[in-house]
């Protein structure tokens, strides 16, 4: 499995310094831990358009790293996480019950979320999720 470049660099430097077998074992354990760590974290790009950014202090682009957990992240969990960590004010204007408020469109990797299962879509690493509020103006 190929690692991210920075991890790869770290791996080879560690490798070159290794001399003794118990250090090899030590390294293998370390490598396993690093591997588990980067698989579990999900990095996402969140975009907010059409006025939704007003609820997030005006910030339109958020680069988030979701903490690792046993069950995979889906949109339902993401919304809960956003409500707890990113939403600055008026959660009822963004989230309604389980889902987003009607009138807010969700695009995952530039495709309609209805095509991908809406709330049940499982997020992959480096996905981009875009929330467009259509409730404003013409």
């Amino acid at each position, binding site marked *: 499995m190929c690692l991210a470049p920075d991890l790869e660099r770290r791996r080879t430097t560690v490798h070159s310094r290794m001399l003794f077998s118990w250090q090899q074992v030590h390294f293998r354990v370390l490598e396993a831990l690093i591997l588990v760590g980067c698989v579990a974290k999900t990095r996402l790009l969140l975009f907010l358009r059409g*006025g939704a950014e007003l609820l997030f202090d005006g910030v339109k682009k958020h680069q988030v790293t979701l903490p690792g957990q046993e069950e995979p992240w889906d949109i339902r969990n993401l919304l809960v996480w956003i409500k707890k960590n990113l939403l600055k004010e008026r959660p*009822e204007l963004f989230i309604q019950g389980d889902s987003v408020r*009607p009138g807010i469109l969700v695009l995952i990797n530039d495709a*309609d979320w209805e095509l991908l299962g809406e709330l049940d879509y499982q997020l992959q690493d480096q996905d981009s999720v875009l929330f467009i509020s259509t409730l*404003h*103006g*013409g």
Partner: protein
Amino acid sequence: MCQVGEEYGAPAPEVPPPPPPPRAGRELKCVKCSEGLPVVVIRAGDAFCRDCFKAFYVHKFRAVLGKNRLIFPGEKVLLAWSGGPSSSSMIWQVLEGLSRDSAKRLRFVPGVVYVDEGAACGQSPEDRAKTLAEMKLILQTVGFPWHIVALEEVFGLPPSVLRHLAQEPSGTKGAYKAAVDSFLQQQHAPAPGEEQLSQPGSQDPQGPAGLPTAAQTEAQAPTAAQTEALSRLFDSVKTLTAKEELLQTLRTHLILHVARTHGYSKVMTGDSCTRLAIKLMTSLALGRGAFLAWDTGFSDERHGDVVVVRPMRDHTLKEVAFYNRLFAVPSVFTPAIDTKAPEKASIHRLMEAFMLRLQAQFPSTVSTVYRTSEKLVKAPRDGNSGGPPGPRCLLCMCALDIDTADSATAFGAQTSHLSQMQPPTPPAEAPTTPCCSAGVGRAQGCCRGAGPCRREDPRASVIEQLCYGCRVNMKDLPSLDPLPPYILTEAQLRSQRASVLQEIQEYLIDSDDEVQTGES
């Protein structure tokens, strides 16, 4: 019946919602071309790929314009742009439509108007300047002649804005076809000095250099006094509903004025299908049911010479948002008067929340309401068909739907009530012929009813010239003083005219043989 997850009264027995139709997964293909990967779901379950979606969207725009043959070739059309997604999309469609080659090209001459409403929304001058700078950037990219006006300019409007200017009828279908044919003939045989006519798309070069400077107008920044007056006006309105209605009215008047000044005969607004469905329901709640056909139809001829046209009325907000995202249409978000307002803050917000929530559960809601609005017919009132046009509302300029005979008693009750509240004070600008002058000393004729003289109660004289919906809005305005002067002037003019007409009514020769009475 429709229950959207909230129980009112006795909770309904727990019925699990019907299982949602199987979602079209990414493995499915576009329903139109059956080969592309679908990116958007339109209506209920139709998945389109990117190219088919674009073709579908553009086709709808052209079809709406082509079906209602109202825009003649070479006509000047003003595009009302708010910076929001629907109007930006409309401008982009016009831009693309004009630059196509051959017979499918759009054939009118566009201009863009942007109304800066920052003062009404309570924005700071720095924010307004920043927004204006972003707007100008986009306007320069688009390349049409543009006009930026601030809402404060309503304080400088002439009373003629409120008058219906009659226009000669545009003619039958034959006239449209003839106009198109003659325009095409002109194009194919250009005069030696007019080669550029064959490519009107290139007549709109980028940047101000190629366009006459008169075509791009930007008023001077509004004075602090005007901004203050506008803020005072909006602060004096008690409810958000009335504020939104007032804002809409003033904006319409301002755009109308710009259109008349610069010679535009049509105004295009970017109202989308969803917005019009919401507007239809809101108008019903506000008491404007009589004017639904004008408020939500494709064309709105209430002003007479300038016709308001709604080419985006077939596109839902979802389609507009997707198109703007997929094809990079620039738009600017500006906070409006109802930004971040809670759901029950105004009738508009409530209706919007209701419709969108219903739409989420029953996906054909918006289209059903929209189709209903298409069936509404603009019929004249029974008594007026064939006769002279009746009086029009002062603010919304629709034919008055209140029977004056009926409201005489109501009016009398109103004036006596109001006169008890405020001692009558003569207005600052005294009319030249006060209606109670000694020269026309009729005991019963000069003022309707036994109430005090009408000129001493300006509020009642304005209110009686409004339609029912506008009257209900005016209830939330405790004093009419902060209103822009053109409204009050026109109201006074009309009431004077009505009272003078009433005085000389007996002297007028009627066509149905009423005997002319002698002098008093």
